[in-house]
């Protein structure tokens, strides 16, 4: 395992590599079958380099533990807007998630529906491409259209275009109060309709999830609002009135319990340790129930108002044929090696786009040494 501690060392390591490299942040979010090649850890590039609360900006080296970034922001009364998921429970991994890993996998959580994904808060990257060049895009200011946006391009590229060395974010204030409206017993169609009603209201919903089989087996639909106290209680009241047709609504105001509820959604805890493959399906929110009916899963969880579906399905089964005709895509997030070798982990792209993606990968990694084969 190579452990560079500076960007220059990282560039040297990649330039000198004579075979495939397996890029690792904290190693908590493996995807696909284990790639071969020499390990290249970014954990040695660590530390928050700049934090300006008055400018809503943080800059950190890619190997900085996510926990350190979050603690730094919490001390300034702020947070990452996109609520990154922790994959450890779902994937049964150990280790320390890094901020670079969050970016490489474009990891977002329930607040994505309101505040955007990781890529939307990301305002700058530095990375080393497959040629060993240290490249920068964006910077530390939140409005920047100078040149092509490689920032978005690198987010979610899983180390196949370059190895991140530094990332910058626009952050947001951490609110004082939270409320969660809980409705029990809704079927999937009504639940997604209720979530849409919340999301199309002016009351700034920051989480909209549906668990068809909650902790006690009963369906649970949850809508979250955050902000300052008077505002949260006003909006909770208004939403209660708005959603009255869906039956009894309880409002959870305890921050600890509310946080636990949303952590369970965010981290898909319901499938932790459960036998079966885990798929992540992205569709138009109103198509959610149709997609779920089509795949016939052992269990599902809806987030993003119905647009993000986590599905637990029988081992080795490809659900994509069942989803044909529903626009969107499915990613095989957890499965054994054999299944990952048999079924493409990332959704196959339409011909011309696949050719463009392959062409772009060749430009950034002409030798094909960065996590080869991981994304196709």
């Amino acid at each position, binding site marked *: 395992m190579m452990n560079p501690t500076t960007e220059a060392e990282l560039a040297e390591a990649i330039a000198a590599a004579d075979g495939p490299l397996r890029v690792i942040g904290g190693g908590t979010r493996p995807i696909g079958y284990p790639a071969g090649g020499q390990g290249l850890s970014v954990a040695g590039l660590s530390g928050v380099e700049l934090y*300006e*609360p*008055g*400018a809503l*900006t943080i800059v950190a080296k890619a190997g900085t533990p996510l926990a350190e970034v979050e603690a730094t922001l919490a001390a300034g*009364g702020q947070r990452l807007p996109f609520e990154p998921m922790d994959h450890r429970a779902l994937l049964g991994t150990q280790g320390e998630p890094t901020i670079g890993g969050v970016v490489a996998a*474009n990891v*977002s959580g329930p607040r994505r529906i309101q505040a*955007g*994904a990781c*890529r*939307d808060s990301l305002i700058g990257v530095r990375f080393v491409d497959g040629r060993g*060049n*240290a*490249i*920068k*895009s964006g*910077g530390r*200011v*939140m*409005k*920047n*259209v*100078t*040149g*092509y*946006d490689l920032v*978005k*391009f690198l*987010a*979610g590229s899983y180390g196949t*275009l370059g190895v991140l060395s530094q990332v910058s974010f626009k952050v*947001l*204030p951490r*609110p004082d109060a939270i409320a969660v409206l809980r409705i029990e017993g809704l079927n999937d169609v009504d639940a997604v*309709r209720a979530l*849409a009603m919340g999301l*199309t209201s*002016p009351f700034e919903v920051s989480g909209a999830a549906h668990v068809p089989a909650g902790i006690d087996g009963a369906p649970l639909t949850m809508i979250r609002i955050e902000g*300052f106290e*008077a*505002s949260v209680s*006003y909006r909770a009241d208004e939403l209660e009135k708005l959603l009255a047709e869906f039956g009894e609504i309880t409002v959870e105001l305890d921050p600890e319990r509310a946080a636990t509820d949303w952590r369970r959604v965010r981290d898909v805890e319901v499938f932790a340790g459960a036998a079966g493959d885990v798929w992540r399906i992205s*569709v*138009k929110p*109103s198509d959610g129930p149709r997609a779920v009916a089509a795949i016939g899963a052992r269990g599902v969880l809806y987030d*993003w108002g119905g*647009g993000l579906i986590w599905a637990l399905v029988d081992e080795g089964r490809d659900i994509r044929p069942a989803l044909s005709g529903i*626009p*969107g*895509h499915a990613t095989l997030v957890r499965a054994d090696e054999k299944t990952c070798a048999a079924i493409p982990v990332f*959704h196959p*792209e*339409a011909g011309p*786009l696949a050719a*463009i*993606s392959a*062409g*772009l990968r060749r430009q*950034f990694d002409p030798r094909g040494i960065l996590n080869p084969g991981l994304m196709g």
Partner: protein
Amino acid sequence: MEMPSPNPSVLAKKARIVERLSGVLPPDAVIHDATETRVYECDALTAYKCPPLCAVLPASTEEVAAVLKICHEEGVPVVPRGAGTSLAGGALPTADCVVVGVARLNEVLETDYENRLIRVQSGRTNLSVTGAVEADGFFYAPDPSSQLACAIAGNIGMNSGGAHCLKYGVTTNNLLGVTMVLMDGSVVEIGGGHLDAPGLDLLGLVCGSEGQLGIVTEATLRILRKPEGARPVLIGYDSNEVAGQCVSDIIKAGVLPVAIEFMDRPCIRATEAFAHAGYPDCEALLIVEVEGSDDEIDAQLGVITQIARKHDPVELREAQDADQAARIWLGRKSAFGAMGQINDYMCLDGTIPVSSLPHVLRRIGEMSKDYGLDVGNVFHAGDGNMHPLILFDANKPGDLERCEAFGADILKLCVEVGGCLTGEHGVGIEKRDLMGTQFDPVDLDAQIRIKDVFDPKWLLNPAKVFPLAATESRRAA
């Protein structure tokens, strides 16, 4: 500003190109008469003009594809054009190019409130996207100042922002999908009603690529429910430093205003003389707007005014009703017009870290004296996106050149303090030759290699974004 010399072989076959284009478009959609092509000779960067070989106005994705296929076969450069409001010269033609205007692509294709999206043809104007949904209580968030005229295609090309992006983000954060025609005439669909990409984020790459990767003909945009209300407060200070500190303190206090606008004294005086908004004559003026219900607005403005008072403002005016709110915004909204009354102006949009604000304003003031040109500053302070307006006289020999040199110095200063050359207008031709101050050759090379994949012959808007020397070998190929 240097532009590549036109390709004589393309100029020589104008008749043939026009004939082929006329074969795939209705007669009134091919403009090749020397008088009529002058309409397309420039965009809002009017200092540079060049009529194109011809201009076409396709009315469907299929027509755009047919046009690009012909241009690809003939080796003709193509300059895409939205509404022609670019301040950076993004739509400036060359004499050997075909301008592809999207003005006739202006339909709303689908409105879907349940999924909070709208699908439109890309020539539709920014404001008319909101216009299509506002009766039902929705809006499209990015709001560039030119929103009455500018097209969604141009917004996507430049990744346009606006006054309200502190809360709602810029175009790229509100774009869900595109239908795009590549230079060879093939049509690709990227994204759609779902929220994230299946593989590499090509949508993120296309947004802000200044029409160099493809021509977007349709776009799926995120729409939002309108807030219950919005109200501004006006705060005046006797120093830029204090105003800057106030902005920082408001943000640190955990309030997220939907907009924080900043005007300096030259700009306040000009707008006051022009619009009579009743602004105080002070060094720095802030307009801070918050949203929500009446009670929510009161609470947030309560926090903001408390912070503002600690910094000893010369004036603090809360809008009590819609009329007063409109008066507070009046001066800000007429700032560009007011400066334009005084003289010609050049508007820059470099972005800086908010903490550098006082330093940068002081330096701009010093440079203004050195260059002998007046400058007013009006900008989005919450996100550090400056808009220095440099006044010059286009009829006075040498003034434009002096103004450009001054502008370049301001942009270099923005980069020096950790910011960037352009926050929302784009590079175009205007900042093309300054790219080297922000990027190293390897950074630019990585971007150039992206264009190689989408447009291997370098025919799409080829003379923009990158210094000409850096792309010469490719454009010649």
